[in-house]
């Protein structure tokens, strides 16, 4: 029997919607403080050079300049995302590694003065060879971008599960394909911004970030301030998608200059600086060899990947693992070999972006599976269904599919799109394609090695129980976590949604690793649910003593105390409550005992009722090197069918329709789940058809604007038919798991497979621009 819920699995409007609809919501760039200074950066104009001298004397003389900092002032403590690859310093001491690498910062009375001062700093360079792509960086005798990494290989991974070469011998089809995507930009609408304020030994930073916790730790480590004296607060954030998941230079520089001047310092990225900072999607070059039996059984996969990492590691140490491990499902695959190489180049560092590490691999693999299905004469949906994993299956790389509605997703998009009626029956220039994917529901381990809880939550009741304040460091960045967590708290505590008030995104509110790896609903959700249950337990304990009813015979639902058997006499509790509120105009109380009355009693007996919750996943995955990356307490999965029209004369692709089914375990908020699905598909469509960060020969981004780096507009996106699949994840709060990133996985290959269906052409390079597709169509005709 399905349980009845009051708040979860609904379509309650977001808790932050009104503030955002009225313009009242304040983002980091909207903040101002008395005496605040404005910072500006000096960034390298060369892609690779030694710094011979930095002369700040002219900048210092400019009226209104309050501080100038370089590596001399900032020191050279190495930081980064993963301790295994701390390869950045706040400012470059002796060498710049990409156009945009930070050399100095200025704080001044207004932004113009700061900019001007930065431009007056003279840097003497000795240019070094610029290595702008994987091949030149790996070539014999290439200069080393980081001295400790020969061949400019910043990280490499070699894994084998089963025996791939042996398995290929028994296959009827073994084919190899090469696939390459392009560097993508996050394209979030709000450029990074922050305000730092240092006073009396305490540093407070308001920043546009996905993880207050990681920023706090980095600031503490690099600036040498005890972690307890660093507070990071996330105001409203205008999207992140990955690139805002780690500390950035302006957070460090503004903090440093605030410490030195004693005044608040604000720094804001220009859109061009967003592109130069990047930390977004890598370029991946995949070579996949897949072996299949003639009955359609997938037997083995060999995956070699080179990642163009840019000048620093950022999240790349995780990215490189994901680019292999995320092909372990959703198809049964007994043999899988992966060789990955992340290469340093003289370009902005790449990092995490929605579908971290797995998006290009998934596109390559799902297109190859489509080719193989055609070679076998099998319907691509049937071919996938034949190999599909189900709940309880464990991948060859030890990922446990504790719930997996993959078949349900595929069935749903086949039936929802009219696949059977359309596949193979569309006119030339029209095509239909299908693909699947899966993704983690929260990384199984923190990015730094630690036994830490991944999420904590605290709920504090008001003295009359009429309000439950929820405190969490989880990061609402637009994905909806404030709403989801409020819903979970209300449901678990048994009160109305409107009685919960959330305070989030602040390191003073607890520990939360933040909004990345699709982890907030499952992990922060668990912590919040536990905190709510703790509060409920305490209130019921007091009530139990008062009424002489065993605690476990009572519950709270919808603001009313429920008794398992009979109804005890609670008139004393009720009259005490009334006495405490003399003069109040009391609305008539319901027949049953209210939570407020019980909570008031608990307060009188015990003081403020505070409930705590904490979550960590425990040990997950295998024992091999790198086994941690890709482990998760749960995995979301999805299938998509896309229809396209291709103008055969110009190569222009129009996406006509998209049908998407996603297994999110249990939809805490159905509107939000659909919103995540639609947004994911939009980002995937952009990467498939037009997004590409381009560089000139001098390592400069030549399309560092949202006009020339085109993201989808309202005219590019069709309406998406969204189908929510709920497989009831045993490791998720109320059965919930991810939707934020997994939904992007099938988009690119579904589009590519539809383009093939329309044109007979396979595209192995993204984005599929008109020019690229037109040329491919022409070459095929020849």
């Amino acid at each position, binding site marked *: 029997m399905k349980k009845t819920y009051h708040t979860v699995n609904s379509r309650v409007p977001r808790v932050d919607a009104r503030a955002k*609809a009225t313009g009242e919501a304040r983002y980091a760039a909207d903040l101002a403080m008395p005496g605040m200074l404005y910072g500006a950066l000096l960034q390298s104009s060369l892609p690779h050079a030694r710094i011979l001298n930095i002369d700040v004397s002219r900048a210092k003389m400019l009226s209104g300049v309050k501080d100038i900092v370089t590596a001399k002032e900032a020191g050279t403590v190495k930081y980064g995302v993963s301790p295994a690859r701390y390869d950045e310093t706040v400012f470059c001491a002796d060498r710049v590694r990409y156009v945009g690498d930070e050399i100095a910062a200025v704080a001044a009375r207004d932004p113009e003065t700061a900019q001007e001062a930065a431009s007056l700093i003279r840097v003497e360079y000795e240019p070094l060879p610029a290595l702008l792509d994987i091949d030149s960086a790996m070539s014999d005798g290439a200069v080393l971008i980081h001295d400790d990494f020969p061949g400019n290989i910043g990280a490499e991974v070699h894994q084998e599960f089963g025996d791939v070469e042996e398995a290929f011998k028994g296959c009827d089809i073994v084919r190899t394909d090469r696939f390459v995507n392009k560097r993508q930009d996050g394209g979030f609408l709000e450029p990074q911004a922050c305000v730092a304020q240092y006073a009396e030994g305490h540093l407070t930073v308001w920043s546009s970030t996905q993880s207050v916790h990681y920023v706090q730790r980095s600031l503490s480590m690099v600036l040498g301030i005890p972690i307890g004296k660093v507070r990071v607060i996330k105001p409203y954030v205008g999207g992140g998608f990955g690139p805002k998941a780690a500390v950035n230079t302006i957070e460090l520089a503004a903090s440093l200059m605030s410490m030195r001047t004693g005044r608040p310092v604000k720094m804001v990225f220009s859109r061009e600086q967003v592109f130069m900072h990047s930390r977004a999607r890598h370029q991946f070059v995949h070579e996949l060899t897949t072996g299949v039996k003639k009955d359609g059984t997938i037997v083995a996969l060999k995956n070699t990947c080179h990642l163009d990492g840019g000048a620093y590691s950022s999240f790349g140490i995780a990215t490189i693992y994901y680019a292999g491990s995320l092909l372990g499902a959703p198809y049964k695959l007994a043999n899988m070999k992966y060789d990955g190489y992340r290469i340093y180049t003289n370009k902005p560092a790449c990092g995490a972006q929605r579908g971290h590490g797995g998006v290009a691999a998934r596109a390559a693999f799902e297109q190859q599976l489509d080719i193989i299905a055609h070679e076998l004469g099998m319907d691509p949906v049937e071919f996938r269904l034949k190999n599909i994993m189900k709940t309880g299956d464990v991948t060859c790389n030890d990922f446990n599919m504790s719930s997996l509605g993959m078949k349900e997703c595929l069935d749903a998009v086949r039936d929802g799109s009219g696949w059977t009626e359309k596949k193979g029956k569309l006119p030339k220039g029209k095509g239909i394609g299908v693909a699947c994917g899966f993704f983690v529901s929260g990384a199984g381990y923190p990015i730094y090695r630690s036994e830490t809880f991944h999420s904590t939550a605290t709920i504090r009741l008001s003295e009359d129980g009429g309000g439950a304040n929820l405190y969490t460091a989880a990061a609402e960045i637009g994905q909806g976590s404030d709403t989801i967590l409020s819903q979970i708290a209300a449901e678990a505590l048994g009160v109305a949604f409107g009685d919960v008030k959330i305070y989030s995104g602040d390191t003073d509110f607890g520990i939360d690793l933040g909004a990345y790896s699709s982890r907030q609903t499952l992990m922060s959700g668990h912590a919040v649910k536990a905190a709510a249950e703790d509060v409920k337990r305490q209130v019921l304990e007091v009530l139990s003593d008062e009424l002489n009813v065993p605690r476990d015979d009572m519950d709270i639902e919808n603001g009313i105390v429920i008794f398992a058997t009979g109804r005890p006499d609670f008139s004393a509790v009720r009259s005490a409550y009334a006495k405490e509120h003399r003069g109040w105009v009391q609305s008539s109380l319901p027949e049953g005992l209210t939570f407020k009355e019980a909570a008031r009693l608990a307060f009188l007996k015990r003081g403020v009722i505070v409930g705590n919750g904490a979550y960590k996943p425990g040990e997950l995955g295998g024992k091999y090197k790198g086994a941690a990356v890709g482990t998760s307490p749960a995995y979301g999965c999805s299938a998509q069918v896309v229809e396209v029209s291709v103008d055969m004369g110009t190569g222009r692709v129009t996406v006509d329709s998209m049908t998407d089914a996603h297994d999110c375990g249990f939809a805490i908020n159905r509107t939000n789940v659909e919103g995540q699905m639609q947004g994911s598909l939009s980002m995937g469509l952009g990467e498939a058809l037009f997004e590409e960060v381009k560089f000139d020969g001098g390592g400069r981004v030549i399309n560092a604007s949202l006009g020339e780096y085109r993201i989808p507009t309202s005219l590019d996106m069709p309406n998406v038919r969204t189908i929510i699949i709920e497989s009831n994840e045993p490791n998720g709060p109320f059965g919930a798991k991810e939707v934020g990133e997994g939904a992007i996985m099938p988009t690119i290959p579904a589009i590519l497979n539809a383009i093939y269906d329309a044109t007979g052409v396979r595209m192995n390079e993204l984005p599929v621009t008109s020019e690229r597709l037109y040329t491919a169509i022409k070459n095929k005709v020849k």
Partner: protein
Amino acid sequence: MKKIITVTVNGTEYESAVNPNMTLARFLREGLGLFGTKEGCGVGDCGACTVIMDGQPVNSCLVLAVEANGSAIVTIEGIGEGGKLHPVQEAFIEAGAIQCGFCTPGMVLVAVNLLENNPSPTENEVRQALSGNLCRCTGYQKIVEAVERAASKIVCGERAGEL
């Protein structure tokens, strides 16, 4: 040298001395404290800074404050009356058209302007009207649905008012 301008913003007239190179976006934000106007790019690509100037949506980062001299400007703070939301704002909230919210003020203003000029737009007309405003979160679908929902709210509201 600063120039004196007179601008009516959300029905209130302001006289201000501004630098000739100050943009309208910055004037609204820093001069008048109207931070609902967002800056996403500063060069007219993203539409986050959209305001209504003399009845037309404009990217306020591409308009100089001195160009707005004598104009009537409506920003997001001027939408809705006396704490009551405009039907477009209500529809955005109900339809789930808001995620990160950074594009929302611009989107709402474009939608309000569209419905004033075309009370019953087709889906394609809505998409055309919104095409200068970028959103990275929603895939636009729920924004389009919200505008359609607002259109029927307004039409129904007016009909109710006629009775």
